[in-house]
């Protein structure tokens, strides 16, 4: 089959970006939105065609081999060092392009309503199209160089969109913070790429993933602190992924990134860009499990489990609804990392990998739905804080129902989407290590509690008097909500019973059978229902129970409310220790010696020219004197030389 048309999947949004970038700002308000949407819609249609062809037409023997749909040589340095760009088709990249284009399309449509009347309407869609192009380019990357290229490009578009309201100082600070933190992590990723390509002599994913365990062992003979050099390289690559995916301790940028417009939070900081780290580990998964027998995966699992617990605890106390959702995203990505970390490679051992990808898919739907719902609420109430909300179910019926569906899905209630994927991750964790299972189980309870705390605070609690009666959002906003609601409702069930996920997506491409362990599922549903009931008791009606509980916890409550003071710790380390102590000598050298030398040269030039500029009197005859006396002097000198 000829797959070369797949190159248009990233290129269509790119064309939209170019058109909007050159002409978009001159067009009247809704037009740039529709241009961007059409570009993404083209990518959406092509993604669905590709997925259909890949899963149902081409590979009917149920064994999914990676194929290169398109590849071109981009930069040719030597025979070995060649940078290529292309489209790699394998189960996860096809799944990711479907997820990215679907969510991006819905967010584009939603933004047409949400951004109406904003002076930066055209600029918003320029950045959004750029992001869609970059993300699609990232998921179809055929080699490490391409994924790094697009990795930085999504970072840039994320920076542009977080700082979209550039007149707000907090938005500028947040965009800088996000860019610097992720860029800091990307530096480790770059070193990892360089080490990997140096030892294996290739960037190509198919080659890297096709290598045997013994090949890796012979390639990386040297070791450092008990891990081979390739294992270190993969750890560095994982640090890059952890930065992008907001894993502890590089999570500090994600809550602040909520300064951006809410559709951006839904697309970039919930559904697509932040799962790039998960996608990176999944992309190199055979390599991760081969090098050193999967040592690095232990790190992945630990970081994932810890981040998911850490973020869930912080989410319990936050009052800004978007920040609750941000920490919830971090927690769910921790789940995905945990799933990858506990996974094996062959057959049913690969359940963790499949579950992680499954959770990525369902999470993209219900989390972007939660964010878009939050956007509709903020649109109606004009505030991010849940203290300003309450009793909204009467005013926003569609938002209310879809938000409830998403909350049930993320809490893992049967038969909503989150149940199947979360249960599969917990199942994989249980097979690997019981402690991870219990952490995941506890986080499931916390998730249900904080999601329903949010739900009840927004839609029930007390009836408020609003200055302007809140009204339901326009059709461009409610239709995406309803579509995502439907997807959150059925995608888990459909991909478990009708098209079983494990038969399409597994670490090796060979299908296996996935089944529900009803004992584990039962206790995780149990804890989720317990969380929901607790939230209902505390927040369905206004009561003093929450205050009593927070007072009882005292210091602990304050710590979680302040996110365990991690921002302050980072500020202390960078401002006081790094700028104040470690780099003080360098600062002195830079300001005194380096700048001093430059200033000296500049000042000398200025002073000497001021001293001699009086010679230019403006009198023509003075100049003539100078010319004549110069000529005479020359004549005298030459005559003297000739005669001696």
């Amino acid at each position: 089959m000829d797959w070369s048309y797949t190159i248009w999947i990233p290129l269509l949004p790119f064309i939209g970006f170019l058109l909007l970038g050159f002409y978009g700002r001159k067009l009247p308000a809704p037009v740039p939105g529709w241009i961007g949407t059409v570009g993404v819609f083209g990518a959406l249609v092509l993604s669905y065609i590709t997925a259909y062809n890949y899963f149902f037409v081409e590979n009917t023997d149920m064994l999914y081999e990676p194929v290169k749909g398109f590849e071109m040589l981009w930069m040719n340095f030597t025979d070995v060092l060649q940078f290529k760009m292309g489209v790699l088709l394998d189960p996860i990249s096809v799944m990711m392009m479907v997820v990215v284009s679907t969510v991006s399309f819905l967010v584009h449509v939603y933004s047409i309503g949400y951004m109406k009347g904003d002076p930066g309407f055209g600029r918003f869609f320029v950045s959004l199209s750029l992001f869609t192009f970059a993300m699609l380019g990232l998921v179809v990357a055929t080699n490490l160089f391409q994924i790094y290229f697009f990795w930085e490009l999504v970072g840039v578009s994320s920076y542009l969109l977080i700082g979209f309201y550039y007149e707000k100082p907090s938005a500028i600070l947040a965009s800088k913070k996000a860019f610097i933190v992720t860029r800091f992590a990307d530096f480790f990723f770059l070193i990892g790429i360089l080490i990997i390509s140096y030892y294996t002599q290739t960037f190509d994913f198919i080659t890297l993933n096709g290598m045997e365990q013994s090949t890796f062992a012979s390639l990386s003979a040297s070791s450092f602190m008990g891990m081979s050099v390739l294992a270190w390289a993969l750890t560095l690559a994982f640090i890059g992924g952890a930065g992008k995916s907001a894993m502890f301790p590089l999570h500090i940028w994600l809550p602040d990134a909520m300064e951006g417009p809410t559709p951006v939070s839904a697309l970039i900081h919930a559904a697509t860009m932040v799962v790039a780290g998960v996608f990176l580990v999944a992309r190199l998964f055979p390599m991760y499990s081969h090098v050193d027998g999967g040592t690095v995966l232990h790190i992945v699992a630990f970081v994932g489990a810890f981040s998911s617990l850490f973020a869930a605890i912080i989410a319990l106390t936050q009052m800004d609804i978007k920040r609750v959702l941000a920490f919830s995203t971090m927690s769910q990505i921790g789940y995905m990392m945990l799933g990858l970390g506990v996974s094996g490679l062959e057959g049913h051992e690969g359940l963790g990998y499949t579950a992680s990808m499954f959770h990525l898919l369902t999470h993209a739907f219900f989390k972007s739905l939660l964010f878009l719902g939050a956007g509709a609420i903020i649109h109606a109430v004009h505030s991010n804080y849940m203290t300003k909300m309450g009793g909204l179910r009467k005013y926003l019926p569609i938002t209310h129902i879809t938000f409830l569906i998403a909350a049930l899905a993320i809490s893992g209630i049967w038969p909503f989407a989150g149940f199947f994927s979360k249960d599969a991750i917990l199942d994989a964790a249980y097979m690997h290590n019981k402690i991870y299972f219990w952490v995941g189980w506890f986080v499931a309870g916390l998730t249900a509690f904080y999601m329903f705390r949010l739900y009840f605070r927004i839609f029930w609690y007390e009836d408020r008097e609003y200055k302007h009666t809140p009204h339901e959002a326009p059709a461009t906003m409610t239709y995406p909500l309803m579509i995502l609601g439907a997807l959150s409702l059925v995608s888990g069930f459909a991909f478990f019973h009708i098209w079983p996920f494990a038969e399409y997506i597994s670490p090796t491409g060979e299908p296996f059978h996935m089944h529900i362990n009803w004992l584990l599922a039962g206790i995780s549903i149990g804890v989720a229902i317990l969380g929901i009931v607790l939230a209902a008791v505390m927040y369905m009606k206004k009561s003093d129970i929450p205050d009593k509980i927070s007072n009882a916890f005292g210091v602990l409550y304050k710590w979680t409310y302040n996110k365990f003071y991690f921002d302050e710790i980072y500020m202390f380390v960078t401002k006081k220790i790094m700028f104040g102590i470690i780099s003080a000598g360098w600062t002195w050298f830079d300001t005194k010696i380096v700048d001093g030398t430059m200033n000296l040269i500049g000042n000398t030039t200025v002073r000497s020219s001021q001293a001699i500029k009086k010679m230019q009197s403006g009198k023509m005859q003075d100049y003539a004197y100078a010319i004549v006396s110069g000529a005479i002097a020359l004549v005298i000198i030459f005559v003297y030389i000739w005669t001696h």
Partner: protein
Amino acid sequence: MIPGVGITHVLIVSTLMFFIGIYGFLTRKNLITILIAIELILNSVAINFIVINKYLFPEKINGQIFSIFIIAVAAAEVAIAIAVVIDFYRINKSIDVEHGETMKY
């Protein structure tokens, strides 16, 4: 070739003309007089060309051609210079070179 008149005599005349021109150019304040001084310089050079051609290389005509060039250039230069002087007068209501001092640092 006039009998009794050698190349040295003519060169002395042209040198005198040249330095009279330089002196006039440096000391006079009136733009028209300065222009006349420049003419003196140019003509002294033209005389040099003719004389050296005639006495040293009688079979060639290069010097004569160059002196014709100088005359043509001098005519063009005068046309432009007079235009400049007229404009200068319109701006300063005077043709005294002392009034043209605005173009300094």
